[in-house]
């Protein structure tokens, strides 16, 4: 049983986001609780209290008490809480400690000094339960995000805790991996574990959760049973700042009407990695000025496609023809721009305005008004003097967009621009994308987010095994294919 009594918390740095005010609730054994709410509402803070990272790792002012099975965990050192609570975090890249999967699974148990035979026995059991036989004995760096997340779940399970805390575990996953994550949670649920999941993506949990805690501004505003929660109408869910509860059905209201009939032609894209062909696009015609959704499972070659498009892959062949002009790889580096999944990789200067000016040729003083205009178009004016790295992920993304606009790129590629975003921020991204479209840019969006697709894409490329298996605009057949892909069907073992 988990019990929060009058818990309030404020981070040391005085950050308002993530504070908690007077939290009270109890979770009985074996319950699966979904914790939702907008970004900054305190979800993550709450999970950190449960796995002991607050107050041991993240310091701040804490009041009240947290109990697991009647024992207060606030004063306990982290290594004691480690065997009570198993944690899975958002970023698959940053939560593994070992380099190979076997050592990773053993890591937690080794820390607690559990005997070797016992660890081996547990490992056998966990591997069988989670069906991760094929992942064993491998370098974690060679695994996909979904596979890493499975290893993270397995590592948490190895400690055999009674409570699991998951903090936005699906943020970086594709549809297939989310289904697999749901299977793992189902397993734990059937084992009678108590589970708390903080999450933005809700639809995969609707058949799993027993109860929903809705948080707002550091407080628990509502405590729903899952049945009540599912009855909330979609408009109300959006107003609450939450993502859709159900797999999206595409009714797409906006159809793209090209101002001109120009086309972008991609021809003979080929890229081989370690002697096997991972990308092969022979001829593809895309209406210029559209927002193209690039869809497919992880590992299908979407990212490779994007990198080849930008001209980042030196060994890739292929040409793009825009308005009758053909660009080979090196020239494409100046025509295309990719907004990376982690935009902090592409911001270099000490303030936002400089970042935009860096992309512009010519005299700085002459450029300044243009740069300021770009920033205000993207609602970045209040941050002009901030250091780009001090901004939130969404703001950084817009700074990256601003620098791309400033350098006059015709083609922009977005790598999963809405992963881990709540409803409001997702809509914000969609608005930016539409604004760019109005300005005449052609956009390619690599995404696993059906809600974003529904809102702004008007053309699709579906990539499978490194090839384009279908492409086209909104029509009945494509809609069905999309619904099938994003739909709730279970993967068969």
């Amino acid at each position, binding site marked *: 049983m988990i019990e929060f009594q009058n818990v309030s918390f404020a981070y040391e740095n005085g950050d308002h986001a993530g504070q908690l005010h007077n939290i009270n609730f109890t979770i009985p054994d074996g319950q699966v609780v979904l914790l939702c709410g907008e970004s900054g509402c305190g979800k993550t803070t709450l999970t950190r209290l449960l*796995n002991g*990272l607050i107050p*041991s*790792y*993240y310091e701040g002012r804490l009041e009240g008490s947290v109990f697991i099975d009647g024992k207060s965990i606030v004063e306990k050192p*982290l*290594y*004691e*809480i*480690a*065997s009570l*609570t198993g*944690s899975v*975090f958002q*970023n698959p*890249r*940053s*939560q*593994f*400690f*070992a*380099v*190979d999967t*076997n*050592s990773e699974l053993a*890591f*937690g148990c*080794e*820390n*607690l*000094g559990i005997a*070797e035979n016992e*660890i*081996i026995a547990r*490992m056998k059991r966990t591997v069988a339960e989670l069906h991760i036989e094929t992942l064993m*004995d*491998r*370098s974690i*760096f060679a695994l996909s995000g979904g596979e890493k997340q499975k290893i993270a779940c397995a*590592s*948490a399970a190895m*400690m055999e805790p009674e409570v699991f805390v998951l903090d936005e575990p699906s943020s970086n996953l594709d549809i297939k991996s989310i289904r697999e994550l749901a299977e793992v949670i189902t397993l734990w649920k059937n084992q009678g574990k108590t589970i708390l999941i903080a999450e933005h993506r809700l639809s995969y949990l609707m058949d799993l959760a027993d109860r929903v805690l809705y948080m707002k501004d550091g407080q628990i505003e509502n405590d729903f049973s899952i049945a009540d929660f599912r009855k909330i109408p979609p408009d109300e869910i959006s107003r609450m700042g939450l993502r859709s509860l159900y797999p999206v059905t595409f009714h797409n209201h906006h159809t793209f009407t090209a101002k001109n009939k120009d086309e972008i032609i991609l021809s003979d894209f080929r890229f081989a990695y370690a002697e096997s062909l991972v990308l092969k696009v022979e001829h593809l015609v895309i209406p210029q000025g559209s927002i193209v959704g690039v869809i497919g499972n992880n590992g299908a070659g979407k990212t490779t496609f994007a*990198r080849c498009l*930008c001209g*980042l892959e030196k060994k890739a062949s292929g040409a793009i023809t825009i308005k009758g002009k053909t660009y080979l790889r090196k020239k494409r*580096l*100046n025509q*295309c*721009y990719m907004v*990376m999944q*982690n935009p*902090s*990789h*592409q*911001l*270099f200067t000490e303030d936002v305005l400089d970042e935009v000016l860096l*992309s512009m040729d010519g005299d700085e003083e002459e450029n300044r008004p243009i740069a300021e205009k770009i920033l205000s178009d993207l609602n970045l004016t209040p941050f002009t003097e901030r250091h780009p*790295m001090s901004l939130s992920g969404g703001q950084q993304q817009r700074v990256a967009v601003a*620098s791309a606009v400033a*350098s006059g790129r015709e083609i922009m590629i977005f790598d999963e621009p809405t992963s881990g975003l709540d409803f409001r921020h997702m809509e914000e991204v969609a608005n930016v994308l539409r604004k760019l479209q109005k300005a005449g840019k052609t956009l390619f969006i690599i995404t696993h987010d059906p809600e974003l697709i529904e809102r702004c894409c008007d053309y699709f490329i579906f990539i499978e095994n490194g090839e384009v298996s279908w492409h086209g605009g909104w029509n009945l057949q494509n809609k069905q294919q999309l619904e099938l892909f994003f739909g709730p069907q279970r993967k068969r073992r």
Partner: protein
Amino acid sequence: MSWELLSASKKSKGVTLDPRTKLIVLITICFLVLGGEGGGLALVTKPMLTAIPILLLFCFGKKKAALVCVIIYVTCYLGEQFVVPVTTGATNFVLLFLCGFISRVLPGLAMGYYTVRTTTVSELVAAMQRIHLTEKLIIPLSVMFRFFPTVGEEYHAIGDAMRMRGIRFGGKKTVKMLEYRFVPMMICSIKIGEELSAAALTRGLGAPVRRTNICKIGFKALDIVLITFCAVLFILTILRKIGLLGVLA
């Protein structure tokens, strides 16, 4: 280039050695080849100690690396024997120094390459625990090896971003290159590091108990042969040094 030091896959082909043996050979090479004296006994021990890492590389399936080492070594040896005597002055000095230096450094580097390519982090950690090294060194050492590939990934991602924005060497931006390249890389790496640290702590890192380790390491016949060999070389060298082996010297 690859930053994945110490991440050999577990199913390494051919000869496997205990990490402790590798360390002993490394240290022996450092003492007797890199820093050892020339002439006499060394004329025998040095080629032998050079052969060990090359043979190991060869057996491990790194035939290309082994071949490269052989070619470099032979070139230096021949250079020292035949080219050096016919040159004079500065050329003579540079050549002699270069050949001598490379043939001294090469065995160590070859052994180092073999070590980092054939040892997993877990094996190294297990070995460190066996020799009762303090956790205060084992923990940061394992974090460091875990983190090399991550920093490398960040480094490449930022390199890509710079190419995309047209920030290249040359022009007035050359001085700023270091800043542009390293600052975002450090910020991103450190953020990942903080998350890594938190995740590790929730899994009991730092508990005041003796850590266990499921990684099996142990000495086999080949380990014993190599260690004995190193020990013999050391003893001979010491004996020679104190003058008991005048005949051989």
